[in-house]
């Protein structure tokens, strides 16, 4: 009984060791390539969703793919699911203000969307698929992602906080 409860918690509540989760993500990307002939990428889903909102009614596999992501989030946490307004250490950074937090995340989101589109992909398209395919652009873009992230985070949490 104890054993099955532990399995249940690991499937629907707990997070995993990096090697196990990494294999899961890798196999999902691989299966998408093998079975569907598609290259994993999330930013393209946002691009296609935007083009539907603004005008052209093209239907795209990527929109259906990104619709599954929230469902995956539900499934992974269903054993201990609850709404939350908290957002980790960001709460301290915005002095607990929900308005500041909403504005902060919205503006950061603009940087993410604009930057990912310009860079030709985000963490999934460039850093996982692009690097695995040995694309020079993707490898350099991934190094730039991490460099910018390291600089910004260290300024925020070492200099400001």
């Amino acid at each position, binding site marked *: 009984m104890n054993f099955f409860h532990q399995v249940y918690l690991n499937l629907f509540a707990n*997070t*995993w060791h*990096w*090697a196990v989760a990494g294999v899961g993500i890798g196999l999902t*990307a691989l*299966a998408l*390539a*093998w*079975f*569907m*002939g598609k*290259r994993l990428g999330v930013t393209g*889903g*946002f*691009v296609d969703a935007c*083009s539907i909102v*603004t005008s052209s009614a*093209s239907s*795209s596999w990527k929109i259906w*793919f990104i619709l599954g*992501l*929230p*469902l*995956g*989030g*539900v*499934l992974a946490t269903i054993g201990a699911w609850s709404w939350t307004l908290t957002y*980790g250490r960001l709460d301290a950074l915005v002095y607990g203000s929900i308005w500041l*937090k*909403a504005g902060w995340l*919205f*503006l950061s*989101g*603009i*940087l*993410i*969307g604009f*930057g*990912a*589109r310009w*860079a*030709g992909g985000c*963490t*999934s*398209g460039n850093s996982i698929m*692009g690097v*695995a*395919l*040995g694309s*020079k*652009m993707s490898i350099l*873009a991934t190094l730039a992602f*991490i*460099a*910018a*992230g*390291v*600089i910004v*985070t*260290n300024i925020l949490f070492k200099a400001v906080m």
Partner: protein
Amino acid sequence: MAITRKTSKTPRKSIEMVVVAKKKKVSTALSTGSLLAYVLFGVLFGYFLSKARATDYDSIIDMFMFKEFQLYGVIGVAILVVAAGLFLTHRFKKPTLSGKALDWEPVAFEPSRLIGAFLFGAGWALAGTCPGTVLTQLGEGKVFAIFTILGIGVGVWAFQKWQPKAANDNNC
């Protein structure tokens, strides 16, 4: 049904093709089966992102401050699995199980794209999330993810306004 099958096989829809499709009123809808398959792939990807702790703000911050190996390990292992798997099918010249060709062409190197990459990296650190994980966060019940999602939509839209001729790249 025949029409939808035919059009869903087109590997990449260029702007011109979409325009033609609109003019001719050709349905570009995917078949219900493949549509459900794509949703299922999304569910799997979101599930593993959540299990990897990639949907946690503090994990992203600890990665960038080199306090935690977790997410470097996740990305590294995922790259190795994909590279090894694609190498094997390529090596033995096996067609993919779907019978469809993979979009192999890499995006051409352009130095200006690195500016976009820096902007993305800054956003990744500021919001503590990327486009895939933020949608997963919504499912986990993290309400504030909605503001990041709206922002990403605006950012993608703004880029399209700025560079209307830019193609939807393979990496996206």
